């Protein structure tokens, strides 16, 4: 089976979607780079976005469907809403999720609400591909996750894949979905790889995944945090602590049943989220568990998150900011009195 990086898997899903549906288009800053200019026809796509994820698409599908935009997120996000309502399936790239602020109106008040407030006749089948996450020494304005910002809004769906397999399967689904989907790609995961079948079927949105079966403690890990959860779980085997790792993959909708079933089995929960702690996915999932599994809990839900600060730049500070496998391990040992 072919081994693919997350970056390649996303590119594959885009190519496949472009081939399968002529209504799929892509808009974003530098997604074609210099390729849009006549004198560069025939040369390699200049950028393919800052991480090179969309490289090759302009050459394969042309400038009508792969459109470089100006640095005008409100303009092309709003255009995606109008194009989606009238029959296209636009994918727009928000270069960093930190730029949400300059086009949040288009997502919060237009993409999310037109179907509801105009009587249910419209649908908005658009996908926002955006880059999230700390650990790149990229500073406070290029490192956030902001999962809960979009998850909070009714009308939007939010997906955050961990590995290449899920990235491809979930992106295929997101593009086929008739609702607006925020598809979050973690910059520190782009070059990680795993087996991805060429004929991978779309993975339904709202279905979580058990990454490791276990019996003592449930670790609910959000996107890149699965990496640390797996490291911690391996280490904890030495202490005879058996961890079950749940990757929800999709945050709106959220696979609550998968979470509750695991919590009922283990009675102990650690939620790991690299976002800021207040009104976060971690606090939301914690509250759902308290409401639905209170009598099954052997102790209080533990949250491991970033502190309530912006993402710092300097490596020692940024490393401190991001949750670690050690923190997860320590928390599990404390829960098990080990």
């Amino acid at each position, binding site marked *: 089976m072919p081994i693919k990086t997350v970056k390649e898997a996303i590119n594959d899903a885009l190519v496949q979607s472009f081939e399968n549906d002529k209504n799929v*288009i892509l808009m974003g800053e530098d997604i074609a780079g210099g390729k849009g200019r006549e004198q560069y026809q025939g040369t390699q796509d200049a950028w393919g976005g800052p991480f090179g994820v969309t490289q090759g698409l302009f050459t394969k599908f042309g400038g*009508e*469907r792969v*459109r470089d*935009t*100006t640095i*005008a*997120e*409100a*303009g*092309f*996000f*709003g*255009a*995606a*809403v*109008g*194009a*989606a*309502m*009238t*029959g*296209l399936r*636009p994918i727009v790239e928000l270069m960093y999720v930190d730029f949400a602020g*300059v086009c949040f*109106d*288009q997502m919060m*008040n*237009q993409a999310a609400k*037109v*179907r*509801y*407030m*105009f*009587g*249910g*006749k*419209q*649908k908005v089948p658009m996908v926002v591909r955006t880059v999230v996450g700390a650990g790149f020494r990229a500073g406070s304005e290029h490192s956030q996750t902001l999962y809960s910002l979009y998850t909070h809004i*009714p*009308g939007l*769906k939010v997906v955050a894949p961990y590995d290449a397999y899920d990235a491809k399967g979930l992106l295929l689904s997101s593009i086929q*979905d*008739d*609702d607006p989907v925020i598809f979050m790609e973690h910059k520190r995961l782009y070059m990680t790889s795993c087996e991805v079948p060429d004929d991978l079927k779309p993975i339904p949105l*709202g279905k979580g995944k058990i990454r490791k079966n276990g019996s003592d403690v449930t670790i609910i890990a959000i996107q890149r945090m699965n990496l640390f959860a797996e490291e911690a779980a391996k280490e904890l085997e030495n202490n005879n602590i058996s961890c079950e790792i749940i990757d929800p993959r999709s945050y709106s*909708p*959220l696979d*609550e*049943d998968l979470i509750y079933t695991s919590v009922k089995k283990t009675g102990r929960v650690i939620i790991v989220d690299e976002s800021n702690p207040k009104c976060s996915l971690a606090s939301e999932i914690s509250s759902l568990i308290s409401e639905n599994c209170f009598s099954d809990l052997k102790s209080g839900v533990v949250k491991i998150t970033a502190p309530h600060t912006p993402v710092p730049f300097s490596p020692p500070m940024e490393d401190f900011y991001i949750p670690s496998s050690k923190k997860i391990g320590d928390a599990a040992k404390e829960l098990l009195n080990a």
Partner: protein
Amino acid sequence: MLDKDKLDWIYNKLFTIRFFEERIKKIAKEKSVPGYLHTCIGSEAICVGVMAALNKDDWISSTYRNHGHAIAKDCNLNQITSEIYGRSTGICKGRGGSMHISDFDRGMLGSFGIVAAGPPVVLGAALQEKINNGSKNSVSFFGDGAIHNGAFHEAAGLAKLWNIPMLFVCENNGYAEATATDWHLNTKELSDISKAYDMLAYRGNGNDVFDVFNVTKKALEESRNKQTPIFLEFKNYRFSGQYEGDTQLYQPQEEIENAKKNDPIKLAIDNAKNHNLTKDDIETYKKNALDAVNSAFDFADTQPWPKGEDALQEVYVNYPKEVN
């Protein structure tokens, strides 16, 4: 010369909008109507003139001051009224209200409560038409206040850069909410803003429905032929306040009296003889419009309220039930 059917339609719509707005203002004063109301008395010629130049299924976006656009786009008057009353048979099933009256089946992409939300959305519809070699026109309505908003500028820049045929239609009604246009403009003429994008721009008399119609029709053709966006500015006067209940103290009485000389309904009546319309024709238009308005309000009064739990519907196309 316009044919009689077109003239009938134009005059009927002008009177319907005016009578509708007068009626809703009166009701808002006498008894309570839920929510915010933004009436468009003074905008009738722009609503009707632009729409007269469009085909029935062309795309438009409107704003919170949308009653006139919806009526001129041939939305069902009973359903419009029911929507304002918050009833289940409203055009948006009671989920929108006055600010969001919109019917996608009539080409209305939406009536947006956020200033300048419409231009990017219409750009997207126009882009779709261009990619699919479609034939529908795309028109975004917005007020003079919107020209300072980034979303307008971003849409204008992309539309020009991508050679997208569409119309940016600015209703320059003298006020951005409570702030006078002559105070907030940086340029001599509002439409000068289009120069930043090397975009064609035309101005028309927003009080003269026939001028609005002619300017729009010509612009639609030119926009399509040249594959380019065009900016249209129609000046008129906002006799209504920003919202119903606005004291309008910032609008000088003298200014209002002067504006009345160019009231779009008065101008249309004055113009009638140029179109071979008689006084009887005008009386018939008025009577038909008033009858339609009366019956729409009678209809809305009898309509059922939605159930509270109807609020849960149509947030998504698909969402797992257990978590909705």
